């Protein structure tokens, strides 16, 4: 899927005509806009088709879900998901090209990207915060319908000292290994960094396998009252975040093997590690609040 950026050539011809009217010094090229080397640390992007295509793809995805939920045939709309997947590939490819291979990611650009990712993490935190609120709303004052007690009458809670404790150990260990991988990368030791990252991904795969086993053998479902809803919404959302974080770490593993990272500039990896630590902290909150306190 090599989607060429067909827009820049026409747009830049137009821009070069406009540029001729101003008297530029020999600093800048009179030709294409993308030939003009910027004298500021900011990255002025070339015209890109990805945002609008992503919007189209996400629309298709949303419509597919709505049609599926209402029983309407949604076969054609599934291509929205395909478009979204292709846009993710193309956009990420452009991002890697601009940052790693063309060097546009100066200190200022890096700090902007960092701020954006921190805001994204805060938004994810808010998402979990809202579900924890819902849990506390029901758990702190259990209603008459569930027997005025928490856990509600009839719910067989999972024993926290078995699989959940194992999961906690796995996630904390994976946080440690990913941190050590980061330290190896910063120190310059390539092979150890890769090995530790592979170990991290392996540990997270064990976690997902454990959770799947818990889900398959659980005595209650998401439909079992407010306990079931809270439990499966929180752990399910967390599981999706683990899978997303693992795919991010795998992406970083591939890029690390392709030598995209230097010992000081490896923003994608930094962000993946922050995300992983976030996932770990949320699991610890889940473990102590839902599994231990809530049972």
């Amino acid at each position, binding site marked *: *899927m090599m989607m060429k950026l067909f827009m820049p050539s026409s747009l830049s011809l137009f821009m070069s005509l406009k540029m001729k009217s101003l008297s530029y010094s020999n600093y800048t090229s009179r030709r294409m806009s993308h030939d003009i*080397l910027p004298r500021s640390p900011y990255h002025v992007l070339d015209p890109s088709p990805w945002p609008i295509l992503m919007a189209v793809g996400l629309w298709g995805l949303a419509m597919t879900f709505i049609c599926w939920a209402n029983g309407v045939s949604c076969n054609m709309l599934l291509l929205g998901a395909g478009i979204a997947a292709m846009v993710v590939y193309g956009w990420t490819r452009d991002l890697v090209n601009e940052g790693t291979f063309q060097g546009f990611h100066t200190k200022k650009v890096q700090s902007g990207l960092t701020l954006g990712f921190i805001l994204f993490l805060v938004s994810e935190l808010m998402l979990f915060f809202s579900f924890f609120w819902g849990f506390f709303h029901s758990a702190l004052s259990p209603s008459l319908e569930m027997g005025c007690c928490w856990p509600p009458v009839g719910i067989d809670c999972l024993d926290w000292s078995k699989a959940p404790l194992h999961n906690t150990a796995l996630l904390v260990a994976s946080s440690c290994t990913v941190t050590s991988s980061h330290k190896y990368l910063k120190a310059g030791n390539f092979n150890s960094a890769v090995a530790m990252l592979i170990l991290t991904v392996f540990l997270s795969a064990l976690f997902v396998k454990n959770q799947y086993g818990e889900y398959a053998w659980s005595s209650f479902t998401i439909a079992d009252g407010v306990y079931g809803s809270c439990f499966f919404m929180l752990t399910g959302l967390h599981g999706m975040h683990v899978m997303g974080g693992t795919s991010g770490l795998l992406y970083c593993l591939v890029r690390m093997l392709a030598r995209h990272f230097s010992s000081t500039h490896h923003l994608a990896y930094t962000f993946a590690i922050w995300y992983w630590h976030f996932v770990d902290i949320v699991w610890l909150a889940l473990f102590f609040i839902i599994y231990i306190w809530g049972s």
Partner: protein
Amino acid sequence: MASSLCRTLLRSVRSPLRNTQRLLHTSARVSAKGINLGGGLEDHFKGNKEIEGQVPDLGGHAVGMERYEILCEMEGKDPWDMKPSTKQKGFGTRDNPHIVNSVYDRRLVGCICDEDTGQIQYFWLYKGEPKRCYCGHFFKIKEIGSSDFPQYPRDELIAMEQD
């Protein structure tokens, strides 16, 4: 799509370090013939080779604007000229306007009229007559050329074209 992705990945794993000519789908030429570091900057990392099993440091890995920034900082030069210029005493009258350096024939000026002010007065300054801000200070453009910034990359191709 998957096969082309695999091909790209395999190609990049096998290719040598810092092969910047690989992917030029999008914009600026930072490694094409003619674009170099302008002669004003010395590439301190030239000649460093990759050590097997070692992660490259920033000097061995950075390209383009990022590399230019790093090399400028190593030599103590200012890469972006982003610091605010201070108003000198005695300047600002019609006869002695503040000199504003500019590459083009116009530049945006932001006058901090007073240290404690909460607003910055912005206005376009054009080549020619001095312009007065609301606070009374005069500004005048002085056009500068690339010779004033020897560390900026120069496009040799443009120089060749102008001949």
